[in-house]
């Protein structure tokens, strides 16, 4: 089964990366871009076949490693096409 985990910074947390990219896009003359915030995605292959078990497993992975919950939120999507 395939899944995608998206980890984004919590609202209000400073995002130096996003800020620098935003600045770079603006100086490139890409007007119309107001703000950028950067996050991460993890594309994960699982040997698990039950959606429920896979979700539990991924949640544990997020809590343990993929996301830093002090500053980040995460979202898990099971990509059905497998």
């Amino acid at each position, binding site marked *: 089964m395939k899944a995608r985990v998206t980890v984004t910074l*919590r*609202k*209000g*947390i*400073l*995002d*130096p990366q996003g*800020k*620098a990219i935003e*600045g770079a896009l603006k100086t490139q003359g890409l007007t119309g871009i107001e703000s950028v915030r950067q996050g991460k995605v993890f594309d994960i292959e699982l040997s698990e076949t039950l959606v429920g078990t896979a979700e539990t497993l991924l949640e544990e992975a997020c809590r343990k490693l993929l996301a*830093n919950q*002090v*500053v980040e939120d995460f979202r898990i999507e099971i990509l059905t096409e497998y």
Partner: protein
Amino acid sequence: MSADPPITPELVAAHGLKPDEYQRILTLIGREPSFTELGIFSAMWNEHCSYKSSRIHLRKLPTKAPWVIQGPGENAGVIDIGDGEACIFKMESHNHPSYIEPHQGAATGVGGILRDVFTMGARPVASLDLLRFGAPEHPLMRHLIAGVASGIGSYGNSFGVPTVGGSTKFDRRYNGNILVNAMAVGIARQDEIFYAKATGVGNPIVYLGSKTGRDGIHGATMASAAFEADAQEKRPTVQVGDPFAEKLLLEACLELMKTGAVIAIQDMGAAGLTSSAVEMGAKGNLGIELDLDAVPCREPGMSAYEMLLSESQERMLMVLAPEKAAEAEAVFRKWGLDFAIIGKTTDDLRFVIKHEGEIKADLPIKELGDEAPVYDRPSVLTPRPATIAADTIVPPISHGEALLRLIGSPDLASKLWITEQYDSLILGNTIQGPGGDAALIRLGDGPKGLALTADVTQRYCEADPYEGGKQAVTMAWRNLTAVGALPLAVTDNLNFGNPENPKIMGQFIGCLEGIGEACRALDFPIVSGNVSLYNASEGQDIPPTPAIGGVGLLEDASRGATLSIKRPGDAILLLGE
């Protein structure tokens, strides 16, 4: 915008103010404070800013010598190193933030201490760090160690200062309260040092650097936020470091200082805008008026309270010569940094805050600092341990086994895993980086050099605070002399448990007396430092850990001695008893 919450005893308590401290506020201003004013008092009168538990004891430390240009009281200490040059340095802790979020906590600790040094006009040339972790097998410890090491590394590496030394030890009593102390060292011309003292009435107060967000607004907001509908949204957030912004801030500040535009400068560290503005005004015997509508904000709808207490990083406050304001702005725009005139100096000695057409605070500026409570907390001195005669002890294990245990102990193990994550070579002046008794760097193209060290043996301080304090200073002295330097001065970071516990207060006083005694005997004055109390979790206080940072000078750095044995056949000498 929601209205400010009413001042209740609960709200006062949530701001860390004791009932008698609140009474003191009432007497001082003759009325009930506004919500914003309560926030200001809580920031100015907390332990971190006011040193209320430690102040009377710190006065006993020796801080003077002919080569001391500036002792404690400014952003950092300044000493004369000859040829018109000054060495500017300080150590500071970021213990609690590093426990909550080790990478960012440690990174912003490094950022803060670097700012203290370049605020005074110095270009940073080295940094060190003293780390105390819990038992390696503690479930959180791997995460904490990895995060702290990467945080210190990533900030210093990107900023471009070599991390040349430090100390790392382990003890289970740091399990719930690790220590992260960072020391920064910079060099400036003696006639180009900048101070926090504002001068001149009506001069513009300028905000520089990154924008203000709701970062690190202390726990008090949590309580007060309960009064607002979107409390969840506004919960205090972790400070995130931006070493790139700091590097730009460094270059912009140093460039600006050359133009003669800067009258006074102060970095926004703990308690951000509040403490930096109050300090500049109070030191210069001037009032400060701020109009918060002009403060560059990262998020919409920030209240006066939030702007005043935000601990967003990479920000500075300056008093500028008015005729140079345009020139100053151009420098900051070139470096892509925010620049805003947010107020002016006044002659009425008031700290006045305007926001959205309202006066949010109007307080006597000097009293905010001078009238902060001072405590002579009850103390119980640690009893002197009995002397043990070595020949009465039966060895519990064999020498061979003891040696194996020593080699296997985390305290003595190689710290390469940590120190390799630090760029110790940048600037091309590192003669000896992590791994020696003291670090050794060359100054500019030489021949002069600096020796630097940061360490303490908490085990000794716990057994006998007075002797342990003395030992910490003499160890720094020996480390410096071992590389061939003349020891000049000290910065310290006094990490202790809960000062409301008389035993802990006894440790504090004992260590300070020992430190003072050794510094006096060695002519080794303390020129800057920091106190970190309340290092305890779940009733477990940390061992007394007064970190000592030492700085020494070599007239010819090429004569310095490093640790490695140079060639076979050389004689080995043992000096001393």
